[in-house]
């Protein structure tokens, strides 16, 4: 029985293959990998800390950690899961150093949350395409979410992670990740219902 190659079952142009190639010294593979994911990781960090300078610092730390751990990388999960787990850990470190305590209320304050959201203008014409105001409204609703629910939604949007991937990236159970994502999406749908 021959041992399996590290790249066995990995598509040639996949994230995992690129990361393995970079671990073997292929700098161009890193460039491609970075180009694919730099935007998602940056937005994930920026929309949680809401400070561009801090986001820059965290972003650099995430990729430097990736560079340092290139030789130890093995394909045990999706690359994006691995990447966002690194980003999540860095984010949690930042919260801890900033003295932010992450707690979640039982009902997540749903009633207060929806009462605080501004109502859509009554005379706004309906548009088929998503307007700039809708995007701004969504970002406002996102900022108002509890951090864990916001993180779950961001991981789904930016990293295209499943509930299982979100659970793995954030270090929680699948049910916890599912609950966070459910609450986040419910609030966002409710807040965006005026444009539906």
């Amino acid at each position, binding site marked *: 029985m021959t041992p399996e190659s590290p790249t066995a079952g990995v598509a040639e142009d996949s994230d995992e293959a690129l990361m393995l190639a970079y671990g073997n010294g292929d700098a161009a593979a890193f460039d491609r990998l*970075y180009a694919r994911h730099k935007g998602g990781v940056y*937005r994930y960090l920026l929309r949680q800390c809401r400070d561009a300078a801090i986001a*820059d610092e965290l*972003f650099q730390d995430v990729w430097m950690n990736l560079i340092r751990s290139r030789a130890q990388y093995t394909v045990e999960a999706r690359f994006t899961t691995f990447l966002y787990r690194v980003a999540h850990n860095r984010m949690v470190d930042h919260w801890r150093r900033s003295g932010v305590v992450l707690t979640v209320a039982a009902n997540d304050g749903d009633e207060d949350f929806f009462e605080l959201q501004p109502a859509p203008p009554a005379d706004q014409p309906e548009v088929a395409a998503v307007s700039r105001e809708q*995007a701004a409204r969504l970002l406002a609703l996102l900022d108002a979410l509890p951090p864990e629910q916001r993180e779950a939604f961001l991981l789904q949007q930016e990293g295209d992670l499943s509930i299982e991937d979100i659970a793995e990236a954030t270090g929680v159970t699948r049910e916890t990740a*599912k609950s966070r*994502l459910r609450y986040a*999406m419910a609030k966002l749908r409710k807040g965006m219902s005026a444009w539906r």
Partner: protein
Amino acid sequence: MAMNEDQNGNQNIGPAETARDPQLDAAYRASVGASGGDGPPAALDDAIRAAARRAVGARPGMPGRSFSRWRLPLSVAAVLVLSVSLVTLMREEGHDRLPAEDPVSSQVPPTTRSGAPAAPATATAPAQDRVEPVAAPKKAAPPAASTPPPQRQVVAPPALHAAGDPLPKAEKRAVLERAPVADSANALTAGTPALAEQAASPAPVPQAFAPSLSDRGVDAGSALQRRSAEAGARDERAPAVAAAGRAQERRLLRSAPPPAPVAAASPATPWADLIEAPAKDWLARMRELRRAGRGDDADAMLVEFRRRFPDIELPDDLR
């Protein structure tokens, strides 16, 4: 009342509640870029990419690992080439300069150096290399402007003052006569400021030297007078040498043979007119002196007669 979110109960959470909502997805995609600053700064991009390249040893615009593979051998080769070139150059230059720059070897007599065993640089050096150390002391002690160039073979004057004075007197005399004035002056005044001052001012040595001869009752000493005159002439060029010359003349006078008892051609002598005369005239004169009662003059003339004519027998009347 706060509860763990796991305790909220995921009962009744269907797949539709966590599935992707197209409208939310569209709204979120629209927010990307609308809020601005959705991507990292270009400088941060460059820094991260550069760090990634450095981590694997790659450089932009270079053929990857091929250069790093050759970096060490190329460096070693360059260092070796430089080292060999430097050593070769230093050997060539050092071979030319070593004899002239070595103060110790320049002081060693040529015979000693040429006889030294296993001295490849000296043995293979050209003849001029052996001559050069002789000229080296010129740099250390430049000659006086007004003195003639010294003759290198004379080193006797310092030896005359050496303890024990091993040279015989005849040799000393010869050496003194051969010794050039400048060398004597240099040797005598070397390290002696008082003598150097005397050398700077002329001294009337000949006048002081002449009475010293007459005090001894020496009449002629013509040879010595000539020497003193020559010494005086030298003293005019180098007055300090006069002192040394004087002392040497005194030594010569002491070692000179005793003076003749009768002066040879004094005008007061009774045989002054008989210098070139034959022996019979000398005998006739002596008889005249005896007859005239000048026995002392006759005796003195007899002594001179015997000195001048030792082969002639004296008549009985004059004995």
